[in-house]
């Protein structure tokens, strides 16, 4: 779906991409292109004779990646370093939030006298592997680095978001299998496309994709921290779930059903 662009020319989704292959904002990509050719930079934006860019963005990376695979350039090193620190900082914040919420939950359960069937120890079952978190963060960044996401967050403030209707960023700290996580990211990004900026043919294509996948039927992934009411009403509420059965989840008693896997090109 998200193709690697070989030049500054438009790909199918390039009008939705906020940044070009070299990371700079796309506001004036054509002008930049002309500028570069005129100045003939012999620097990192050097282009091969066949107009391929020396480095390009892939879905897994936050920005241009050296074709040799080795990120020896200082720009990338610093970015990676920064991401690592951000992930660790996020982890600490998340832990604190979870501990706070768990504490409140236990108090409520004790006072109401109910024994919740979901003893979700989210804090214990948190994803902490740095490599995994970094990979997930990159995937999230890639999805957020779109005009669609920009338009979405401007249009729908957080408190107005309805689960199922509005896309929600997958929670990188929850334990999911690789397949499950990649699936969530895919679905999230597809949902975000509903906010793509209008283009000549782009608009219709987007609607086609939405209809094909029958997204109305696919409920949002269970991403929220299970509250007591959720776990008690689990039997009735959530219809279709795309978490795979073999998931090591926190034992959330939600009806898990396999959907017919949508065919994403």
């Amino acid at each position, binding site marked *: 779906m998200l193709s690697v662009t070989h030049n500054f020319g438009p790909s199918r989704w390039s009008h939705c991409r906020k940044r070009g292959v070299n*990371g700079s*904002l796309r*506001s004036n990509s054509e002008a930049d292109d002309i*500028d570069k050719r005129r100045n003939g930079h012999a*620097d990192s*934006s050097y282009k091969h004779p066949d107009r391929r860019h020396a480095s390009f963005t892939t879905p897994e990376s936050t920005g241009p990646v050296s074709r040799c695979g080795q990120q020896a350039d*200082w*720009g990338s090193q610093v970015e990676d370093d*920064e991401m690592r*620190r951000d992930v660790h900082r996020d982890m600490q914040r998340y832990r604190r939030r979870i501990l706070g919420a768990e504490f409140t939950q236990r108090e409520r359960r004790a006072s109401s006298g109910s024994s919740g069937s979901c003893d979700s120890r989210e804090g214990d079952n948190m994803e902490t592997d740095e490599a995994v978190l970094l990979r997930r963060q990159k995937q999230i960044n890639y999805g957020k680095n779109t005009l669609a996401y920009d338009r979405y967050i401007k249009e729908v403030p957080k408190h107005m978001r309805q689960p199922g209707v509005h896309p929600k960023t997958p929670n990188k700290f929850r334990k999911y299998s690789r397949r499950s996580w990649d699936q969530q990211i895919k679905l999230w990004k597809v949902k975000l496309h509903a906010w793509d900026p209008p283009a000549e043919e782009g608009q219709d294509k987007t609607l086609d994709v939405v209809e094909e996948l029958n997204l109305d039927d696919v409920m949002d992934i269970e991403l929220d921290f299970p509250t007591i009411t959720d776990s008690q009403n689990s039997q009735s509420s959530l219809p279709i779930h795309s978490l795979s059965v073999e998931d090591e989840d926190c034992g959330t008693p939600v009806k898990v059903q396999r959907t017919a896997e949508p065919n994403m090109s």
Partner: protein
Amino acid sequence: MENSAEDYRIQSFDLDTQRLLKTALKDPSLVNLEKVSNIIVDQSLKDTVFSKEAGRICYTIVQAEAKQNNGNVFRRHLLNRLQQEFKEREEMRARSLQEWVCYVTFICNIFDYLKVNNMPMVALVHPVYDCLMRLAKPDALMNEDEVDCLVVQLHRIGEQLEKADSQRMNDLFFLLRDGFLLQESLTSMARLLLLEILEFRAGGWMLSSTAHKYYYSEIAD
């Protein structure tokens, strides 16, 4: 922002460039950030005054870009350009001592100002050490400009560097001690500078008041 020209020492640029830089500081998305980073680096390699303070303007542009759209295009171009020059530093030094000294001053200035989550950029630690080690070699110690550059940088960022990698700081100071003791071709000014930096580090990156009096009593307060 009326005194921004002095704050960032951009008076040495022509007026058009000054305008471009001021725009970059306020509204980075309006300018070609790769071009801006090249302008800044080019000038830093020519202008000793600018090279000492260019870190500030870079820091401000990085912050402005991050705040505006979470971008780091400017930083990436700046760092990669620095890296290019670093790869060819030996040729640069052979070509022009002044350019080399400006480069070292500039990269240390960037190390000082551009932090990531309040920590120095790890990617720059070894390159900075490499530059300082080069300045501590016998042929460089013979040039007062290079010795001066070396001790000024150590004063500014020595403590941070040591925290980042103490072993390399030890290695550097082995060279400095050897140079001070054994190298006969040193000028007395060079020796004085070396002695001061040896004492400075030994004192935990500061001079005792008596040492300060010894080295700086002639300087008007």
